[in-house]
């Protein structure tokens, strides 16, 4: 696209370009420096100090070493991985199921699509309130249903029981984020040429074969994106867990973001908090390398 003046003239020769360049880039650069570069550099700097805010003492990588040698760190990392994998996996399965359903010409498909926007748009706090109510041990609907069905003898306090805390947090998260997978997959499904299915049918392929050989290859890229990007976001998610369990009971649902908050604001230790934030930063950088290698997303804007 855009074969025109840009190919024939350098930007400087286009009239008024210099100041336009200024107008469009100065805000961008200023903004990035103020809200991204400075804070991240500042955080990485702080992570090398003990008590960096009031009375800094340089400890080098001491904060990192102390975090990484603490056995509980690996538990928190494990919790983050479990939470990220479970929420992403379940969202994918649910989203794919519904996307396949809506993509078939069924009655009410359009209404279903609209419906799926709601969990996504409802603020996290609202979602938390709903699920806290549903899973409440005293007046919760789920306990009421399970008891009436004779499946349990006494109510379960889902968010504060060791066995159930993580599943409860996962269900709450999946309820909100399955629509993310749904919309991305539905868009891909609707881009598949229907002739492909027609030809497969004529050649006697079963529904399963058509799904395996036509649908799945088309969805592969989208599924990878969901697994990777959604996985990164869930790994980094703070609000849902903080608002439901605060990382408890004991440390059953304490993930790295929750831990960063606890160290910073409960233990008021900004050296260690920023060091843990630094560790998360490097984990993200690692994941980003995989993301850029797999998708080369920047190619979409490089012309």
């Amino acid at each position, binding site marked *: *696209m855009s074969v025109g*003046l*840009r190919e024939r003239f350098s*930007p400087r020769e286009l*009239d*008024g*370009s210099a100041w*336009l360049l200024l107008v*469009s*880039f100065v*805000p*961008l650069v200023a*903004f990035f420096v*103020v*809200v*991204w570069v*400075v*804070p*991240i550099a*500042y*955080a990485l700097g702080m992570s090398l100090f003990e008590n960096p805010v009031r009375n800094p003492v340089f400890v080098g990588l001491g904060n990192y070493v102390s975090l990484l040698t603490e056995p509980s760190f690996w538990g928190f990392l494990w919790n983050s991985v479990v939470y990220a994998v479970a929420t992403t996996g379940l969202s994918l399965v649910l989203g794919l*199921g*519904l996307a396949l*359903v809506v993509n*078939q010409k*069924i009655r009410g498909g359009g209404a*279903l699509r*609209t*419906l799926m*926007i*709601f969990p996504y*748009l409802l*603020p996290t*706090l609202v*979602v*938390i*309130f709903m699920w*806290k*109510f*549903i899973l409440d041990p005293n007046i919760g*609907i789920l306990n009421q249903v399970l008891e009436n069905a004779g499946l349990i003898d006494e109510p379960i306090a889902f968010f504060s029981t060791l066995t159930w805390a993580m599943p409860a947090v996962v269900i709450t998260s999946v*309820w909100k984020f399955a629509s*993310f997978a749904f*919309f*991305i997959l539905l*868009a891909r499904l609707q881009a598949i040429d229907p002739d492909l299915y027609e030809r497969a049918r004529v050649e006697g392929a079963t529904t399963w074969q058509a799904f395996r050989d036509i649908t799945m290859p088309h969805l592969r890229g989208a599924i990878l*994106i969901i697994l990777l990007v959604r996985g*990164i976001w869930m790994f980094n998610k*703070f609000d849902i867990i*903080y608002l439901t369990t605060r990382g408890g009971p004991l440390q059953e649902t304490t993930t790295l*973001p929750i831990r960063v908050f606890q160290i910073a604001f409960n233990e008021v230790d900004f050296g260690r908090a920023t060091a843990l*934030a630094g560790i998360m930063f490097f984990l*993200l950088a690692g994941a*980003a390398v995989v*993301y850029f290698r797999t998708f080369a997303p*920047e*190619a979409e*804007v*490089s*012309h």
Partner: protein
Amino acid sequence: MATADSSWFDHRTQQRLQRVALYITALLITTFVIVPVYLMVVIALQSPAATFAGGQVNLIPKEITARNFLVLLETTETVRYFTNSLIVTASSTLLSTAIAIAAGYGLTRFEFRGKSIAARAVLFSYMFSPIVLAIPLYVIFFSLGLLNSYFALTLALTAISAPFTIWLMWQYFQTVPLSLEEAAWVRGASRFRTVWDVVLPVARPGYISAAIFAFAVAWNDFTMARIVMSNDDMYTINVGASLFLDRVTIGWGETMAVSLLISIPPFLIALFLQRYLLQGFSVGGLE
């Protein structure tokens, strides 16, 4: 197991079974999505006495009352929290969209080395964890005396939404043909005028999607507000309401009432701007 074999089911039966399975799946997922929303609405509009009569939760509504909303109004600072949320959400939406339009246009129309690095930087910050950014921002705002200010929270929220709005506009401007602009230049319009009169109208769907995204991020935010606004007066609605559950005087009725209020702005967006919202998804997903 010869279920796939036509000797067991003829083609018709098989298709009919598939449709049944399809509708059952649709029904199950619909129930899963609808039940919580239904509960919220019913509990918000019923008095707690009606909801919890008889020791069990009654979910067939018997009455409609504004009682829960009135209690919120009289015993809580809901109005103040809402105002705070509206102020920072509006500021952050405007700022994020403005930066995205300027940067998106510049990045599309100017050639420079390191464009692909810029693209990676934008996407990398899009994936960033708010909590990791919030800690240094807290310390910086603290030392500058900016904690508990609209300015600080606006900046923090824009930091979270801008990477994606920039990315979206950057992609969107590429779909605007340069020939449109050239035609205006040839007729003597200045470059700024061209952008204002020719490019922006064409790019409207793009910046509406960007604005919706920025709005959703800001309206939804809990993490940044929880950290930057620690003063009771400055709570946003999400932070303020999150404390309701610990208050003895506030029960589920009022909690669901405030939930309903928080849900209204996004609901209106879904109702009127669904098309733009879906466009945002198709460009590579939203957070």
